[in-house]
């Protein structure tokens, strides 16, 4: 047996073991979808009469907002006067509200100063800032931003062309902010990325006067620090706050005077969740209609517990039957097939659990369907090979030579067939949204793992068995016919 085969065999077994152990150590668990587990449901109501069209548009935006990756499979539907959103796996109602958001507009405002949080009321009057607006006007007392409770500008006075005082995420600081210089319209995309082991938010602005040019104008001011965008103590550059819904999402320092349209990175001490939330807020700023959250509720699974239990029991029995059948038919080779299934299964589980925990990939009934079928296809890879073996042996070859000869032929068949599945999975993933996308991901994953398990485990394992004297002597124990057995000639 070539040494390479042995390395493959040991390598894949170790990889599967490592994946299982890591999944347990990291406490990764698949995130079950709404249909299987339930979650939190938020009912949003429009503040003004809205047409069905506007609500449908809002449904689309909210779906994108809560499911940027397209695999969390939330349920978003239009109701009579608003939108109902259900999120899987979220048990914290506040987080659900934060995710869904009810925002009006995203604004970029230069930061004049930062204050600690205040509890006392400090009434102030608001006046539109005379152009050119500069922070010194406010800091010098020339303009008073309107403030209400807790020393921040209340929503009704939060106008784009005025100075405002707004709170930030987490509520530890208040920001004194200049008039808006850019709105969410300027943005074309925003994503959370893990760069240099730090979560950062990469944004892409539109080109033209209302996009990157406007941003660069304020960037040039903030970089050097001017009256419009001063440098605060402890900072090396001025800052621009990104405000959503009367709340400062983030207020990064401007570290360059000119930016490329698609090379703007916000690096902060984001953790993963924060980075994602900021990116989401940036991406889906405005809804066509203002929505307010009416209530949030924890909802149970849409498929009843009874169905779920039945499904799990049925799945276990089904797998057991498959095992029985395969071993009954292929004997020891059947055991190899089962081991191969276990290898691809444990790898698949590790990946699903990892993505479920890290990226909100939900495992719904559709996903489970994909996996059930994948089991059939994985077993098929083994069947194709074993039948090839039997065929070759009956055609007069020895068992051992058949093992070497049949594998490449069978594997080429498997690759051809699996490639078709992969093409399908790739296209569906790329071109669709919602449940179809989740299905495509599971199908693609399972197919790749099937190829891996076949090539690295099943093939080498059968070759290893073929080395034994036992294999040649008792082909029946491997579900193989005696070597050279030639059937009756029919003509």
């Amino acid at each position: 047996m070539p040494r390479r085969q042995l390395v493959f065999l040991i390598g894949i077994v170790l990889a599967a073991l490592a994946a299982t152990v890591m999944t347990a150590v990291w406490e990764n668990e698949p995130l079950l979808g709404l249909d299987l587990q339930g979650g939190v449901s938020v009912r949003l109501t429009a503040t003004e009469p809205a047409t069905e069209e506007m609500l449908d548009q809002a449904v689309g935006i909210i779906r994108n907002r809560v499911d940027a990756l397209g695999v969390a499979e939330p349920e978003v539907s239009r109701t009579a006067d608003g939108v109902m959103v259900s999120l899987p796996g979220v048990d914290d109602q506040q987080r659900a509200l934060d995710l869904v958001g009810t925002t009006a507009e995203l604004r970029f405002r230069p930061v004049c100063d930062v204050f600690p949080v205040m509890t006392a009321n400090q009434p102030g009057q608001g006046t539109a800032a005379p152009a050119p607006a500069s922070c010194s006007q406010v800091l010098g007392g020339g303009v008073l931003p309107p403030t209400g409770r807790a020393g921040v500008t209340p929503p009704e006075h939060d106008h784009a062309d005025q100075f405002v005082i707004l709170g930030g995420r987490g509520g530890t600081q208040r920001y004194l902010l200049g008039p808006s210089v850019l709105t969410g319209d300027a943005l074309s995309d925003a994503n959370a990325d893990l760069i240099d082991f730090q979560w950062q938010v990469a944004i892409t602005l539109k080109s033209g006067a209302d996009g990157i040019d406007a941003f660069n104008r304020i960037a040039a001011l903030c970089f050097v620090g001017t009256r419009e965008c001063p440098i605060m103590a402890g900072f090396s550059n001025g800052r621009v706050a990104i405000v959503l819904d009367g709340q400062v999402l983030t207020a990064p320092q401007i570290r360059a005077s000119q930016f490329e349209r698609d090379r703007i990175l916000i690096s902060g001490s984001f953790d993963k969740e924060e980075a994602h939330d900021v990116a989401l807020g940036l991406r889906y700023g405005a809804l066509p209609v203002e929505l307010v959250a009416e209530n949030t509720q924890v909802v149970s699974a849409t498929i009843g517990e009874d169905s779920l239990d039945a499904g799990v029991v049925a799945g276990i029995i089904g797998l057991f039957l498959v095992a029985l059948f395969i071993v009954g038919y292929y004997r020891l080779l059947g055991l190899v097939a089962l081991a191969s299934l276990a290898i691809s299964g444990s790898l698949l589980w590790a990946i699903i659990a990892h993505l479920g925990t890290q990226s909100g990939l939900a495992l719904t009934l559709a996903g489970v369907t994909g996996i059930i079928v994948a089991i059939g296809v994985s077993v098929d890879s083994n069947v194709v090979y074993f039948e090839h073996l039997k065929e070759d042996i009956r055609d007069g070859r020895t068992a051992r030579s058949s093992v070497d000869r049949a594998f490449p032929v069978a594997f080429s068949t498997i690759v051809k067939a699996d490639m078709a599945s992969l093409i399908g999975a790739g296209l569906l993933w790329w071109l669709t949204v919602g449940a179809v996308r989740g299905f495509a991901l599971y199908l693609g994953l399972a197919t790749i793992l099937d190829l891996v398990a076949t090539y690295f485990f099943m093939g080498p394992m059968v070759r290893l068995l073929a080395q034994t004297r036992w294999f040649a002597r008792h082909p029946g124990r491997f579900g193989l016919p005696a070597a050279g057995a030639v059937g009756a000639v029919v003509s």
Partner: protein
Amino acid sequence: MSAFRRLYNGETTLDYPRWWRRAVTISLVAMLVSVASFGVRGLNLGIDFEGGTSYEVRAPGASVADARAVMAAFDAADARIQTLGDDLFRIRSEVADPARAGEIRDALAADLGTVETFEQVGPTWGSEVTDKAARALLVFFVVVALYITVRLEWKMAVGALAAVAHDIVVSVGFYSVLQLEITPATVIAFLTIMGYSLYDTIVVYDKVRDVTGRLGATERYSYTELMNLALNRVTMRSINTSITSALPVVSLLLIGSVIMGAGALQEFGVALLLGIVVGSYSSLFLASSLVTLLKEREERWQAIAGKLRTRGHTEGPTRLIGREEAAQPDTRSPDRIDGSRGVARRRPVQTTHLGGAVPPRPRKKRR
């Protein structure tokens, strides 16, 4: 030898071509019925696609089963029932007719508890999702056709796509005829059927290519005969794979519906089971017959058929190719027939063999 024994040993000598005509007829009828039913009765789309009515009922002490019982009286036992918090139920049903929805509300108020909200809801699976999926499918068909053309040949691409289309039409038709509810899970099951059918067909075609490649050069068999040999050689694989794929689904259906009485799972279990059976059937009977039809018109295979006819092999039952013949292809180099194309021209193609492999024994005796 018993039938099972023969099957186990791969000695099946089914005469597939004899069944093709019947199979194609049956399939055409089934497709016709499906399309007609789709046109006349349409599909029973669930609340996810069409929207419907949603009720929130406060009913301390009631169970999901109680709520389902109330809905069942209105022929809406498939309503989606969730609990919100402790004693609040959200019941969604695809009933859209306001009068009937009102009746249901009254019944819920009478038999279950206080109806707190009652409203029309829109679909969660919007037309946007469907449009995108449909477009993706079109692209998929084109790309897969190209892929099969490159890896196998275009005639097989035609056969494979026809088989897949047949499977989808028949499955959707089945749902239309019986008016089973279409849920997102069902749509996924349809997609799964498609993938499964395509996969199965490619496995069969690869075998066909292998056999025609090895034995085609002898020019002693017609394409139909070679196809029949290839199909017999993949029969066992097809049966085994169908069984292993179907077992989990069957157990889901049996245990899920009969023993434990759960509704949601069986709807798409039916779709999957149907797809597995139809997918295997279409690969063995439809995809193969279509390719044979196309290939037999090729000059090369026409010539061989003509030669066979002059030798006295007239139309009639397909000659079955014996194991010994099949295993040891003729290695003489016969006269080339002009216009011969395809993988095998003169000599049998030696399939890849790794170091240590033993080449086929030379033929000892000729009959």
